[in-house]
């Protein structure tokens, strides 16, 4: 039945496992492990509002290069980062992973169901994620990550843990 259709199964699995690894690093609060997944030239963008726009042309929920992410990661682990005390417990559930080749890179689309519990309060967010990956299976690096929040155009409470 499958004749004539041959997805690169190993690549699909490798990409899935890479996204699961990223999720696991975040959920286990291994912030520097997470940072290491990003290429030195990477950018991380969470657009604001419901419309699409270039991050260079307006404010964002978050728009950072790796240098800024380094600062962010230091703070995430800082003992006096109040918004992380008590520590949030999270799950980053990744689904709907699909790939498009954008030579020499790989564009990966997926969905995120994010759940956080902290100090008695829950936060549930969903988003479509877009990862631009470089490198080969087992050695992927994130070139660009964009998080299209479902409620990007709504009101937000503080979001401490990266999505």
């Amino acid at each position, binding site marked *: 039945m499958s004749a004539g259709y041959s997805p690169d199964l190993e690549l699909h699995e490798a990409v899935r496992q890479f996204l699961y690894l990223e999720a696991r690093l975040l959920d286990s609060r291994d912030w520097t492990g997470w940072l290491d997944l990003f290429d030195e030239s990477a950018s991380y963008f969470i657009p604001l509002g419901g419309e699409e726009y270039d991050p260079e042309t307006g404010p964002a929920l978050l728009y950072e290069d790796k240098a*800024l992410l380094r600062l962010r990661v230091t703070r995430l682990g800082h003992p006096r980062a109040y918004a992380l005390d008590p520590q949030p417990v999270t799950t980053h559930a990744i689904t709907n992973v699909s790939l498009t080749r954008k030579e020499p890179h790989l564009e990966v689309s997926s969905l995120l169901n994010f759940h956080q519990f902290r100090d008695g309060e829950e936060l549930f967010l969903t988003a479509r994620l877009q990862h631009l990956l470089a490198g080969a299976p087992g050695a992927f690096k994130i070139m660009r990550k964009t998080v299209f929040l479902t409620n990007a155009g709504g009101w937000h409470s503080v979001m401490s843990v990266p999505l």
Partner: protein
Amino acid sequence: MKLSHLVKDRKIHHRLYSDPEIFELEMEHIFGRIWLFVAHESQLPEKGDFCLARMGRTEVLVVRQKDGGIKVLKNSCSHRGTRLCAAPHGHTGAFVCPYHNWAFNLDGSLKALPHAQSYDEQVCPGAADMGLAEIPRVAVYRGFIFASMAAEGPSLDAHLGPLAAAIDNLVERAPNSELTICRQKTSLVYQGNWKFHHENANDTIHPSIVHESSVNSARTTPVDMADFRADKGQTKGMMLANGLPPQDWAKISLSGSALGHSFMGGFYRSGLLSAAHEDDVAKAYRVALEKAKGKQKATEILAMDRFNNLIWPNFNVNAQFHQIRVVHPLRHNRTLVEGYCFRLGGAPDEMFRRASRFLTALVSPTSMIFGDDMEIFERVQKGLGSDGIDWLDMSRGLGRESPDDSTGGQMTASETASELPIRSQMQAWTHYMGDLEI
């Protein structure tokens, strides 16, 4: 009991923050009377342009009229009250209600309705009382549109008083004196009383404590300055700035007025954002400003080094970095903070990028800085609970005020890391609320 009994010289009763009944009275007697910022003119360049805004808990339409004026109308159809518009902004010739197609002119008057023949003369195009409810007073100060639900009261100029200078300065920072507001705004909700925002914004003790995690992260993370491609180190500078030593924070001047307004001096002492620092972009901008306004005037404009200009009860102008914030009370323990940035007409594009990055770094829900303020606001609300403490203290620097010369003595100043701004806010609060009985 008169509400004035809940505010003393040095103390605030916790019910101002924890009592839903007092919140209802605030909505009626403060947000229902005072001048509130509703929009910037650049949101409504053309006749028929409109945008949504909030006045307290009321949703209104701010509409550019055919004659170029501006009206503020309630967003509720006069037939059965249906919410007219849900889109945050738009352009139209008339507002048409989705329920029965009643159409309203830009000035809110009833324009047309189907089956008009089934109505008597009281309901017809142009009929008195059948238009959209109009907010009685609207005034524009240099492009900033304010409205008041009270038909009578002090003028906008009287209300702004010396704080008008903050708006002036923001406008004049545009070489061509034209500002364009950016549509992308941040919308951050915290579980705490609305007054916490302004009480905190000019509190010069908290930054080095509350923001220690970001100060420290900026100090200790080894990053080459050249690696900050996205913002040339601006965010790092913002993070560092809060780490001024206590004695320096104490020197930051604070001014407050009986109207509730206050401002603090700038505290960016080094780096990209400091007034002293000038890189290529800042230089190109200064040159443009000098060209447009003359060297002396440009120097004066750039010399105004203030951080938060708080216009009571819910507006904040950060002229130097081309930002404003609007604070919307939602419930006694729930508040929305909207943040906007501006494009300066005639300035290099890069100046707007900087303002965008500033807003993103400071007021976004993911902010490494503001996130800790928000967390504090929520801890205060939790700590107050229903009976955490009886009275909050606001006595820091009490009795050490002097007239503020920079405002021609219209305000009172302090250089002692004073809680003067909070006392000013409480003075205004008592003015509006003190005579009410509870």
